[in-house]
């Protein structure tokens, strides 16, 4: 038997378990390193190695650890940061990048041109399976590192790449290298602002082309902050000031990137003062945020663009008039103000306002709410009697899809239901299988602030995110002409012409532009967020 006095046993068990539960908790309640450090919320980054880090949380952390070649000024023009000068030869194909001297990595290694070349080669090499690899596809030699699978999903496998270095990258001297593109591109300077173009120290590699085990856990960068301790998964990443940093010195001494699984939890911490900056206040909290935060509730523009796509294989939506009628049945402003409580704005163009070349209302009257006209047009064009909007349920889209459906139902007097799929990937599969999944909700965040970064991936025939299969050769060639134009101004002209085609054809219904909706504690001031939804670490400061 287990003992004669189960009561004592039970009491002891309870006491011990409470004790264990209590004692095991080491004290880490105060994440701030010093009075002059801030706590900012992120989600668990998927990866931190720059070429593999494409989610917004890792971009935040990398912005503290690395000093980018280029960043954007108030006019969204690229300006040199870690680079001293970036110049391009005539023809917009060969770019020369000269970096500033005297910079060192956090381990003391000097930053050289070779560090960039090594990092980029690693990122571009297909077998390394870096999720940011596609950023290098404009550089000459990318195709050799990423051979095409001859039969796509078929049994035949893609051949092994013959080399692991990009032929377009050439070291000139310790501080200079050239980048040769496979096709002319006038705006390449804007592209390399992205975090995948950060350099890696020699210490990152255990042997050439192989990242050292554990490097990602204790990343070494060239930025204003260095990692303090390891990446504590699902908990936090702490960075502190790097004393030998030669660039613009931030006003704060450190950042604790606190990891949250759920944004509402972060909001609770923000309101109760355990968090200094929350970069994305969740929609569920928006109704209370003005009251909870007062003047510490802020908004700024970002690049998010939300829209509804029409799968082209669905016969019932073939007519552009049907598409326009549905678009006119949607009251974007009401949804932006009632469902999103002003955290988004109504979209009436096909690109985000944050890019140069954006024109307000380029969509024309098709994006204006006009229920009577919508109904007439819909009847004329013989739109289907039932409309379905499919969305992935894990993205918090239910509220606005339901509201949109209610508007469509009221305006067009047809049945409208929101159809849930568990994941975005399932939606993709059904699209590929050409199943009738109705309209699909989509969104886009730009990689670099150019119109082209909306037009090509979303509407181009081979666009990576053109999930609905829209194709227009005139459009494609206009976008291409724009990319290869001699100056950015000439590019924009061509791209705007391309956008006009979209307004006529209405392949998607523009819905909303996103904003950074963020808040901060009373401890900090000068909190700004950029187009890429990153906190400006060079401006933020603590107040006593």
């Amino acid at each position, binding site marked *: 038997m287990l003992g004669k006095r189960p009561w004592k046993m039970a009491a002891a068990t309870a006491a011990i378990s409470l004790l264990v539960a209590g004692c095991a908790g080491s004290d880490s309640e105060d994440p701030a390193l010093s009075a002059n450090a801030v706590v900012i919320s992120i989600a668990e980054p998927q990866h931190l190695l720059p070429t593999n880090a494409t989610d917004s949380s890792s971009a935040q952390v990398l912005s503290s650890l690395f000093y980018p070649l280029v960043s954007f000024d108030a006019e969204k023009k690229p300006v040199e940061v870690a680079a001293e000068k970036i110049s391009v030869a005539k023809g917009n194909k060969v770019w020369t990048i000269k970096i500033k001297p005297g910079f060192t990595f956090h381990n003391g290694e000097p930053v050289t041109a070779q560090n960039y070349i090594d990092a980029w080669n690693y990122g571009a090499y297909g077998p390394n399976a870096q999720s940011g690899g596609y950023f290098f596809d404009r550089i000459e030699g990318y195709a050799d590192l990423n051979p095409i699978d001859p039969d796509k999903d078929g049994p035949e496998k893609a051949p092994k790449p013959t080399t692991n270095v990009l032929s377009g990258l050439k070291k000139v001297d310790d501080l200079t290298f050239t980048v040769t593109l496979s096709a002319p591109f006038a705006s390449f300077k804007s592209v390399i602002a992205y975090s995948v173009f950060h350099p890696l120290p020699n210490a990152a590699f255990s042997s050439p082309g192989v990242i050292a085990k554990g490097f990602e856990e204790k990343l070494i960068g060239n930025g204003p902050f260095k990692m303090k301790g390891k990446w504590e998964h699902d908990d936090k990443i702490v960075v502190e000031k790097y004393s030998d940093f030669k660039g613009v010195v931030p006003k704060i001494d450190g950042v604790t990137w606190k990891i949250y*699984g759920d944004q509402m939890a*972060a909001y609770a911490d923000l309101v109760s003062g355990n968090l200094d900056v929350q970069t994305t206040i969740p929609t569920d909290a928006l109704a209370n945020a003005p009251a909870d935060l007062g003047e510490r509730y802020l908004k700024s523009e970002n690049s998010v663009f939300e829209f509804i796509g029409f799968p082209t294989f669905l016969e019932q939506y073939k007519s552009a008039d049907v598409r326009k009628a549905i678009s006119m049945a949607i009251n974007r402003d009401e949804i932006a103000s009632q469902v999103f409580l002003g955290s988004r704005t109504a979209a009436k163009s096909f690109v985000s306002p944050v890019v140069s070349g954006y024109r307000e209302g380029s969509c024309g009257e098709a994006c204006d709410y006009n229920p009577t006209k919508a109904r007439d047009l819909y009847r004329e064009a013989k739109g289907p009697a039932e409309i379905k909007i499919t969305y992935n349920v894990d993205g918090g889209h239910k509220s606005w899809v339901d509201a949109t459906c209610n508007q469509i139902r009221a305006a067009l007097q047809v049945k409208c239901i929101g159809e849930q799929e568990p994941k975005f*990937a399932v939606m993709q599969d059904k699209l590929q299988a050409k199943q009738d999944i109705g309209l699909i909700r989509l969104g886009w965040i730009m990689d670099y602030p150019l119109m082209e970064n909306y037009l090509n991936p979303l509407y181009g025939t081979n666009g990576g995110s053109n999930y609905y299969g829209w194709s227009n050769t005139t459009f494609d060639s206009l976008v291409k002409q724009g990319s290869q134009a001699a100056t950015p101004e000439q590019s924009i002209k061509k791209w705007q012409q391309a956008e006009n085609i979209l307004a006529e054809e209405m392949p998607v219904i523009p819905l909303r532009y996103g904003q950074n909706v963020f808040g901060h504690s009373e401890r900090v001031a000068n909190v700004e967020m950029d187009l890429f939804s990153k906190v400006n670490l060079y401006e933020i400061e603590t107040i006593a």
Partner: protein
Amino acid sequence: MFRYIVRRLLQMILTFFGATFVVFALMFANQDDPIQALVGEKPISDTLRAELTERYHLDDGFLSQYWHYMSNLLTGDLGDSLTGREISEMLSSSWPVTVRLALMAIVIAAVIAIAAGVWSAIRRGGLFDNGTLMFTLLLLAMPVVVLAPVAQWIFGMELGWFPATASRNATFYALLLPAIVLACTVVATQLRVTRTSVVENLRADYVRTARAKGLAPRRVVWVHVLRNSLIPVITLIGVDLGVLMSGAIVTEDVFNIPGVGSKLAQGVRTEDGPLVVGFVSVLVIFFLVMNLVVDLLYAALDPRIRYE
């Protein structure tokens, strides 16, 4: 007794393989496109897809994948998650906080359930009995998706009695509020079962004897009746502890606790087979040990139960 325990331990091994097989099969059936699930809505290049598919054996058949997994497992290698982290490392970082949380929750729940259950059984039909009935109903009608955020809002944010969130290394105090929320999800059933069981036992003859012995009512109930009433309650507590280990997804989300539940949920959502199977395997072992303990407790509680 010793032989019994040994036999149960042997059963455990079989059950363990059964469970991993079932879960592996479920994950396999669920597998759509884990690579896309990983990157969200971004497009994936063909080379990236091909490389990851090969790295994680995603193109292999079910049995071959299972064989691959199990043979690694037997050498102590739980494998890597599709996000590239070692699963053993993920387990060791998420397990302790969940165990602490679940234990706290179950102790809170059991203490309340037993105390209130016994009390309302004695005062059957009285104010306290009906009051607890109403209260447990309220808890039942409030799904945890409501309970957790409301508790966080009231006690964490408005009143400031507790920290609004916890973390992996949270203190006892920081875990208290989430533990209470979790306790609320299981306390109703435990309380009703305690009450029913005590009511039945109050009618037993030995209760009359105990009263005839001039024992104080408190002693009659807490010593004589309770121990006889505990078997169904202990059973339930055992099951609940298991459920709290894996099923605290919502509470863990709300209070930002990176525990087993939320990792599992993440693994299911991202179709991360190795992650889910690894976590479930450990969970199943935990359940098995838990059940053995519960069965041994039966014997400790009731000498008439013997295991050979």
